[in-house]
């Protein structure tokens, strides 16, 4: 809250040059991050998709094998589909449906996130050794 004195001294409701500088700095920071992420490591096509549930690895799946994975938890269910080397969220009963509208992904810089269900599908870069793969695929 401002006192009347402060109000009169400088009009805090009128955009100033310092605002534009601040906004430019923020935009530059966002752009820099975007460039770093775009050209940084990890932005590559992968052959394995890892499903992370509640912060823990739920399973690692081979993108070369077409399959559907149904995951049911207390929070709801998700139906993951792997087809033609990419993975997508086919169905989910989460309220926002962001994960479903995300579509098919195959890049390690492009995770599918279903925040309401605490579920993330991330593509593992090719170099990653799928340590638990054998255990999961039976």
């Amino acid at each position: 809250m401002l006192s009347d004195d402060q109000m009169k001294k400088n009009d805090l409701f009128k955009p100033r040059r310092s605002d534009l500088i601040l906004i430019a700095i923020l935009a530059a920071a966002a752009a820099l991050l975007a460039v770093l992420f775009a050209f940084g490591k990890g932005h590559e096509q992968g052959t394995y998709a890892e499903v992370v549930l509640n912060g823990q690895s739920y399973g690692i799946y081979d993108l070369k094998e077409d399959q559907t994975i149904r995951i049911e938890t207390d929070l709801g269910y998700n139906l993951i589909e792997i087809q033609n080397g990419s993975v997508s969220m086919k169905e989910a009963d989460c309220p926002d449906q962001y994960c479903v509208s995300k579509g098919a992904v195959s890049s390690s810089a492009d995770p599918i996130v279903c925040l309401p269900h605490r579920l993330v599908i991330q593509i593992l870069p090719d170099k990653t050794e799928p340590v638990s793969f054998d255990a999961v695929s039976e």
Partner: protein
Amino acid sequence: MARRVAAAGIFAALALVCSYVESFIPFHFGVPGIKLGLANIVVVTALYFLPVPEVCFVMFLKILISGLLFGNLMSLIYSFAGGILSLAVMMILNKTGWFSVLGVSAAGGVCHNIGQIAAAMLVTGVPVIAYYLPVLMGAGILTGCLIGLVSGRILKILKDHFSFSNS
């Protein structure tokens, strides 16, 4: 005291109405967390119009009640993380006196989304979510500027009709 409580109540109610109105606007960017945040007009206006405890109260009520009415328990966690960070940053920037409501609101919008992403990274345990950060920051700047411009107009009108130090 009664005036302070009444003013805080009015702002909290207004924020909820804004959240309600916004729930009718279909808004799908394919990226979780991007919202217009109409209710933040009320929060930013309150920042200049109400004492600090009341501003926090308005923010808290807005997140809690709109989260329960129009969201779910998980979105509540993200909203709180974003709300607390953005409110803290806006209060500090406002205190410096260097920026007008436009800059304060833009920084608040960015910090809201940074807070949400940070909470999401903690909850899901997947750092890859950080890839959403640039998009979310850009969206935060845009919505923050819009909110700041509208709040500036509202505050100009309020200034002519109310004394800001009558609490």
